[in-house]
């Protein structure tokens, strides 16, 4: 440490205060503590140190050169095509690129810090506002121009110009209308309400395999299936509303919330689309009969009409009326009686309407 002591004290007081940095390395920032005579604010580095630093910088730049060359070589040498080869290529390309960039960055930093002088230059600031004279000139010019243009004097011109601008401003908005069809009542229906081509009720099929489900085979209580409508297995628009979660209960487990007329032999079908914001409510806990949506953790009691027991969803998952066809496969008896999925402005209290209609 240099003897840059600003408080010469008796021998018993240390020249450097404990716990503070040495005087030549201020903590506040790179403000140099002392400036040599001659060039205030530009403090050259010690030439011996600078020469040492030069060698370090040169080494780092050389590493960058080699790594950069390695990057190009890696591109040629390592082909992709399998998972392993992609991984190797990624590692080689990324590794050389990283090394080249970091080494170049380090080289530049050493250059600035150990070869370039240290700076403590001062520049004056000026108020941002223009002076009064300028302001006055602009004011006058503005008024003069407004006067000359006649915009102020000619009222009819002014008003019709504003009038002319209004529809043009709206035009771009009008153009956006064809972005999509109007909603109509499409959010209220799912494909479960549409009979198949030959007029039969639509079968429930297992998501993924597309297998229809024979009620007699889906017989272990606690069982769960993700179900999609037959014929729409790959129609994402249909699936976004019609996907079901199919559960098998012992008859005594079902509570009053579940409509028993819509079940078949303890098999219940609920919409899988969460009534909160539409994620698939895909997690099921057998012991509690809870259906959990993994997005925002709305929890529904599957044994009790899928009513909400926790979380932000405000409505139960709608239940689909199901039965079996003549071959014993599960089918939808009709569409959901309320809209599925997240709430929307036009939805209204569909559940209450249904209750009213029933009574």
């Amino acid at each position: 440490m240099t003897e840059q002591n600003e408080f010469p004290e008796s021998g018993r007081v240390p020249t450097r205060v404990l716990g503070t940095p040495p005087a030549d390395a201020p903590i506040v920032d790179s403000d140099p503590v002392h400036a040599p005579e001659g060039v205030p604010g530009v403090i050259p580095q010690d030439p011996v140190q600078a020469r040492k630093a030069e060698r370090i910088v040169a080494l780092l730049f050389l590493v960058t050169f080699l790594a950069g060359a390695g990057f190009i070589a890696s591109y040629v040498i390592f082909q992709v095509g399998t998972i392993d080869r992609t991984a190797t290529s990624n590692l080689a390309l990324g590794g050389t690129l990283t090394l080249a960039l970091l080494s170049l960055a380090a080289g530049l930093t050493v250059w600035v810090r150990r070869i370039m002088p240290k700076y403590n230059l001062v520049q004056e600031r000026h108020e941002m506002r223009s002076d009064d004279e300028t302001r006055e000139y602009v004011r006058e010019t503005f008024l003069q121009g407004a006067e000359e243009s006649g915009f102020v004097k000619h009222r009819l011109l002014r008003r019709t110009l504003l009038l002319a601008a209004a529809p043009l401003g709206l035009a771009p908005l009008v153009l956006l209308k064809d972005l999509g069809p109007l909603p109509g009542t499409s959010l209220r229906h799912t494909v479960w309400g549409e009979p198949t081509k030959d007029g039969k009720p639509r079968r429930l099929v297992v998501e993924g395999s597309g297998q229809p489900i024979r009620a007699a085979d889906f017989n272990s209580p606690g069982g769960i299936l993700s179900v999609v409508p037959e014929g729409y297995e790959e129609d994402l628009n249909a699936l976004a509303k019609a996907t079901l979660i199919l559960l098998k209960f012992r008859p005594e487990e079902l509570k009053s919330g579940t409509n028993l007329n819509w079940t078949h032999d303890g098999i219940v079908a609920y919409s899988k689309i969460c009534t909160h914001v539409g994620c698939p409510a895909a997690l099921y806990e057998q012991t509690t009969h809870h259906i959990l949506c993994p997005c925002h953790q709305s929890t529904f009691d599957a044994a009790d009409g899928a009513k909400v027991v926790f979380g932000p969803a405000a409505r139960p998952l709608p239940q689909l009326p199901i039965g079996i066809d003549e071959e014993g496969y599960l089918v939808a008896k009709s569409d959901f009686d309320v809209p599925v999925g997240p709430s929307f402005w036009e939805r209204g209290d569909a559940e209450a309407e249904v209750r009213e209609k029933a009574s």
Partner: protein
Amino acid sequence: MNAPPKAITGVSTFVDDRIGAGNFLKRNLRKIFPDHWSFLLGEIALYSFVILLLTGTFLTFWFKPGMAETTYTGSYAPLYGVKMSEAYASALNISFDVRGGLLMRQIHHWAALLFVAGMTVHMLRVFFTGAYRKPRELNWIIGILLLSLALLEGLTGYSLPDDLLSGAGLRITEGVMLAIPIVGTYLQFFLFGGEYPGHDVISRFYSIHILLIPGILLALVSAHMILMWVQKHTQMPGKGRTEKNVVGAPFYPAFMIKAGAFFLFTFGVIALLGTFAQINPIWLFGPYTPADISAGSQPDWYMGFLEGALRLMPAWEINFLGHTVTFSVLIPALVPLGIVMTGLALYPFLEQWVTGDRREHHVADRPRNNPHRTAIGISGITFYGILWLLGANDEISANFHISLYTTTWFGRIAIFVGPAIAYWITYRMCIGLQRKDAEVLSHGVESGVIKRMPNGQYIEVHTPPAEDIAEHIRGKKEIPVLESAEDGEGIPPKGARSALGRLRAKMSEAYGTDHVPLTDGHHEEGHEGEHAGVGAGDRKELH
């Protein structure tokens, strides 16, 4: 070197003859940039943006923003023959069949995370040091716009690959749009071109993601830089630094090279992450279908606070006249974002209104020296942080074996209590730190030397603080307080007569009152020997 090389003089003469660039360079080559570690935070965001533009352009050469169904026949064996959208297939293609494609995808994603993170911490730096004050309010607003647009840019970006995870984000976006009263259903149908998911949203997001928003970002970033350049950077308080000057290193050559090096560091670190830290492995998620989801789906970090807000909102939905308003979606989707962004945008103006301070400020505040501002900021961070944490409550629940619903209830309470506690603690800490500063100035710092007095008493000798530290501390500025005292006849000043005026005066007093005025240590400079303000009450006695 006595004369610049011919190659340079030739070109510069050509340019100067035609556009007079010399005048600009004369003024700006030696422009001074002050130095402080925290000034680098915004640069991280800037350089990440450059990297995003570069890598993003690369990705567009192969990405196909289509939702038409295709059968995957690329190199990734586990998905061979699987039906998927063109977008997902081309994203897989970039990952496995284009050399460097996976690297660029991962660098792009990491750079996006760092872009928003850099902006966020930069904004916090500007907030806590009061660098948004006059004349920089406009640049502050531009910054808020940049941050908001960056969130939108991120949302449209991570929806593009059309994998199962990105689809979950889209589905939530759809659900939130539906919840908007009156126009929500229409907006959703217009954005998605009909019912969700439709066949249009990816290509629409694509043009928004690669053209519309980056174009606006580029324009605003340029404006941000130009304003910074014209107004000159703020500086931290210190020796020789005033409101009228700027102290530091010149643009040419030092700052230029430093900035270049920092760009390369940023790029290098992002490349390092892109190489070794896997991010968004879309091939593991599979193609999107609205029927499926994986547990533990998480958005990118900057969407976490919205996700958390959605999770901790209790169920609340009302119906009237055949219409539905679902507050359990509307409130969490709009209110936290609204509070944070609007609060940030208005803060400079609210502060001016409260303090009546219309002066220009170029020396930044140390956060402790404006305790209420700092407390408000930490309070906001706490609010945001709790929401953010709750956005991962399923992970917290799984990893720390806490009941899921307990974490939700914790969040529901903490979102109100947390910011208040944070405010109080921060305020006290600021005052404490100010006291420490005052003590350093008036009594000096402990020297570690124990001295025995003639009467047998032991004391610790204090010495004055190092000059640069002392100057840094002395940079504390008084916060103006509105005049509200009654005059001789018991009449308050004009502004403080209405109820609002009285409130304003009260707030001003609370905001600006300096509880720990600095008693400058200068008066002790004449002393000789081992002095250190060892007053009667300040002795550190040894027992």
